């Protein structure tokens, strides 16, 4: 009703735009009353009416009413069930002396003092329309709330309402509950999907009650999609979910995992994968004489291959994924796939046999008429000088023996931690200071190659070594000392896993430090072959710690030995270290 106060003019004409209104949608309508603001303080309408041609009211929702000098704006939404027809839009005002709205002469309280009607064309909803279903991907094994957005939904308050919602899927795994038509543009519901539902599309339909003709319905397009529970597979078999049981693998053998779903229907894609793997794993280890390359395990790919480096049980491996629809919307509330592993390996150790010999060895020098040259050696060897044709033989200084393993091969890697050769000289017989000593070293680095070359392949559990120091170096030293420190690392590479073409990798087992420290003394008078070794045996196969098992926190390479280059020899002449 509109209320007019005394002294305010009544509008003499009025127009509305537009004059065609659509059922089920909010129509914005402008009412123009030249020179008079019917919603001003002098005039106000607290209700308007939309009626049929015969005067019956048509259900409609009104939005806020506001006005300016000569026009007003209202929102009007005929109910979705209103059929196509010509209606009348009525504006009225009345007087009310009690409310300080005096009545003109000849009228009484609540009499209509001003009225204007407008014919408007109502266009009924042709059918419900769905613009979106959110979310459009539904996780198997979960319950989730969805919102259906569209037009021309019929609410419960509508005499013919409400709209009905149904879902059908090939696997019979999807049901609906709590369906509520919130308004002509929105329906909410709860979707339930069984745990074992496969990846599939779902037919979601909204059906309006009959209005004139038969019921009208619409099917959501694109169709919502069931997003299945992920499954982890190993060697072609599912190892997560209901088929979960403890899996077993040997450290160093490849664990090649694939997952489902690999693809999704309805234009959805698996857009992000996330793995969480217990224990110490790597994707790849490669070592050669030039250095080491280690790759971290891929944790963001649909499939992943890695190796455990250390034995343990109860190693959980979990996987989740995100799904992205055709509009780029990502859903990341995936259920978790989980498998459990036990990584095993034999218990291995490394023992040393130490000859405890620091001897004066004699090797044949091919460049000097095959003369015998004296060397300070660890062990007792004979043969050619290093670099001459032929091979040395005899008793080595140290032998390192690995034991405990089966089903694989040992890999020895020796790192020279430091290696010094020091020569001191006697003072001249005629007096004066002794010449400064000569020093060779340090020679730190990878010893020989990767793996350590000093292993017989028909007895691959043993590594042999026997450093030696030349004593006849052109001059005649008084003493010659070799101070050699090395660490022998034991790795172990298991046999290839059956059923795969992917090779296993060596894994760290532990290390053994050892040293050879000895001095040869040149007995006077000077002579090329008058050498003796120190009385106190300082050759030692064990620096005290014995075999030290590897741990993942040993270094940044999880216990693998580190090297940047080969151990080599550099001799500085006349360099003294205080």
């Amino acid at each position, binding site marked *: 009703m509109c209320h007019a106060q005394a002294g305010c003019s009544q509008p003499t004409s009025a127009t509305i735009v537009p004059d065609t209104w659509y059922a089920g949608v909010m129509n914005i309508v402008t009412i123009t009353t030249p020179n008079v603001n019917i919603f001003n303080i002098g005039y106000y309408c607290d209700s308007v009416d939309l009626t049929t041609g015969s005067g019956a009211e048509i259900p409609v929702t009104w939005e806020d009413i506001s006005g300016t000098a000569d026009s007003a704006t209202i929102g009007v939404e005929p109910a979705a069930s209103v059929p196509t027809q010509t209606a009348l839009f009525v504006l009225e005002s009345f007087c009310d002396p009690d409310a300080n709205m005096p009545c003109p002469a000849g009228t009484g309280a609540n009499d209509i003092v001003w009225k204007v009607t407008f014919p408007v064309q109502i266009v009924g909803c042709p059918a419900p329309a769905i613009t979106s279903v959110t979310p459009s991907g539904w996780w198997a094994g979960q319950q989730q709330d969805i919102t259906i957005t569209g037009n021309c939904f019929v609410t419960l308050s509508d005499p013919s309402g409400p709209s009905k919602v149904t879902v059908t899927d090939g696997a019979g795994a999807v049901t609906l509950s709590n369906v509520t038509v919130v308004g002509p543009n929105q329906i909410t519901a709860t979707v339930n999907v069984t745990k074992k539902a496969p990846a599939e599309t779902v037919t979601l339909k909204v059906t309006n009650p009959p209005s004139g003709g038969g019921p009208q319905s619409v099917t959501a397009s694109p169709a919502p999609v069931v997003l299945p529970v992920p499954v982890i597979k190993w060697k072609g078999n599912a190892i997560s979910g209901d088929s979960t049981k403890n899996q077993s693998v040997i450290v160093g053998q490849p664990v090649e995992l694939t997952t489902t779903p690999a693809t999704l229907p309805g234009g959805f894609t698996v857009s992000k994968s996330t793995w969480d793997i217990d224990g110490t794993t790597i994707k790849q280890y490669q070592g050669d004489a030039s*250095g*080491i390359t280690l790759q971290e395990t891929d944790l963001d790919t649909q499939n992943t291959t890695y190796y455990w480096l250390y034995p343990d049980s109860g190693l959980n491996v979990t996987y989740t994924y995100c799904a992205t629809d055709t509009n780029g919307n990502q859903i990341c509330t995936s259920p978790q796939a989980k498998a459990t592993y036990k990584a095993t390996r034999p218990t291995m150790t490394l023992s040393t046999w130490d000859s405890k010999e620091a001897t004066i060895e004699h090797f044949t020098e091919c460049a000097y008429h095959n003369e015998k040259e004296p060397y300070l050696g660890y062990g007792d060897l*004979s043969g050619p000088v290093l670099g001459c044709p032929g091979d040395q*033989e005899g008793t080595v200084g140290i032998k390192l023996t690995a034991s405990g393993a089966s089903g694989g091969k040992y890999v020895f890697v020796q790192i020279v931690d430091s290696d010094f050769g020091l020569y001191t000289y006697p003072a001249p017989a005629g007096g004066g200071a002794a010449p400064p000593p000569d020093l060779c070293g340090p020679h730190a680095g990878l010893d020989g190659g*990767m793996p*350590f070359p000093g292993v017989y392949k*028909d007895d691959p559990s043993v590594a042999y070594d026997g*450093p030696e120091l030349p004593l006849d170096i052109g001059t005649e030293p008084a003493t010659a000392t070799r101070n050699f420190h090395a660490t022998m690392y034991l790795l172990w590479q298991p046999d290839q896993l059956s059923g795969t073409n992917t090779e296993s990798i060596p894994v760290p087992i532990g290390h053994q430090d050892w040293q050879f420290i000895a001095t040869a003394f040149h007995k006077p008078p000077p002579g090329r072959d008058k050498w003796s070794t120190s009385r106190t045996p300082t050759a030692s196969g064990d620096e005290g710690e014995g075999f030290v098992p590897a741990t993942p926190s040993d270094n940044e390479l999880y216990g693998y030995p580190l090297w940047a280059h080969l151990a080599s*020899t550099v001799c500085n002449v006349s360099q003294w270290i205080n």
Partner: protein
Amino acid sequence: MITIRGAFRVKLLTAAMMIAASLAPAQDAAPSTSPTQGEGHVGPIRHPGASSPSFTLALHSGTRNRNASEFRAGSDVWITIVEKNITNHTIDFSGSFSGGVDNAFLYDVKDEDGKPAEQVQMSRLESQMGNPYWSDILAGESEAREVLLSQKYKFDRPGKYFIQVSRPDIDFLDKDGNRVVVKSNIITITITG
């Protein structure tokens, strides 16, 4: 991905250790004798009387994990030698390392003009201070040896270099009783500026 190219452990010889070693009293030297069989015995494996080579040598540039045929001047130049046992028994694969180079093999490196490449100057002491090793190759199998050739030859001038390695066969002797030398293929590397 982690790549290690610069980390290593070093223990420094202290002055105290050097002094202690030099003050230890001497004892009479025991003459070295021919080794006898027993704990820690090592030596080359011999099968004398072979009528044909015991192995083949295949050479490629780079390491086992990284093939490379181009190297920057002054950088490390690696080659990999693969020796294959072509007999039905185990053969010797022993040798020694000195100056960072495997002495079991002979190296022939020539520049673009066919001249021998310049070698790194090494003192007699440096060349003799090293370690022997003892190993073998099982019948029909192969073993690889990676050699840092730039420890022995200077590759500081850009250009092409031609490399061949060889190794005397301990079991296959010529009519004069000398070990027959088995040669590898010849490879080409390029040194860039």
